[in-house]
């Protein structure tokens, strides 16, 4: 079956996941990935306000849904995640490996979301992840008009999962 054919018969985004369902979907997918690949349990966190700096891994969804998914955390949280994945001390890991690990986390969580959406009749494609690191930056998808966030915690450090969607 080609992508064109399946898109023509795909269900609408609202049928696949109503707005209130996106945050729960991200949390479920993230918990699965962290449990299996990071060896740690993510728990819900109560974090408010705009987060700046740190490291962000992001990738695009094309099709239904269409938008940008991202994972954002502090550098020390990203290093701790990479350390757990590789069984290494976070202080010993080069920056490249820390970014690579967060990119893979983003890829796997997005993949896990995609599998859940596919089960519900969605058909979308994912791009390869991009990772940004800095002290003062914001990431924004210009074509998107709705956004959903889920704040989680691993070993006391916040990890934010964010989805911006285009109507």
């Amino acid at each position: 079956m080609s992508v064109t054919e399946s898109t023509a018969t795909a269900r609408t985004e609202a049928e696949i996941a109503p707005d209130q369902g996106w945050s729960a979907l991200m949390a479920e997918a993230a918990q699965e990935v962290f449990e299996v690949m990071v060896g740690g349990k993510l728990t819900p966190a109560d974090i408010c306000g705009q987060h700046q700096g740190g490291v962000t891994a992001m990738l695009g969804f094309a099709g239904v849904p269409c938008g940008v998914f991202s994972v954002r955390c502090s550098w020390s949280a990203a290093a701790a995640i990479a350390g757990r994945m590789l069984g290494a001390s976070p202080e010993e890991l080069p920056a490249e490996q820390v970014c690579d690990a967060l990119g893979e986390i983003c890829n796997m969580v997005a993949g896990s979301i995609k599998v859940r959406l596919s089960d519900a009749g969605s058909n979308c494609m994912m791009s390869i992840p991009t990772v940004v690191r800095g002290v003062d930056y914001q990431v924004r998808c210009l074509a998107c008009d709705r956004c959903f966030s889920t704040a989680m915690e691993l070993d006391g450090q916040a990890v934010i999962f964010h989805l911006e969607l285009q109507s």
Partner: protein
Amino acid sequence: MASIRALIVDDSGVMRKIVERSLRQAGIGLDQVFEAGNGSEALDILRRQRVDLVLSDINMPVMDGLEFVRQIAGIENARGVPVVMITTEGSEQHVVEAISCGARGYIRKPFTPDQVKEHVLPLLEVAG
């Protein structure tokens, strides 16, 4: 089972290390491990080296995993070598596409060493 020579193909170096560790944790002895960051690099390795197993991601820059598996058939060194896809793409459509391209197994990320064992071991036993 004797130790094997494996080729791991993934654009993430972290994931290549995790796949290697999972093979070892699954009790699969590794005599030598070759790594490639995309399908094109992997084809170059297969032209020069004999391997017993290939584990490949699908979504990669330069040459993706599906095109890589299609082109393996043209390499004499690699004929009959089992290829297992390890990818985040878990839809039935992707599995069917990978198998029709020549892959012999399919593991979805995230994965455990037990899942690697379950998919890889039978292929090595048949080949060996």
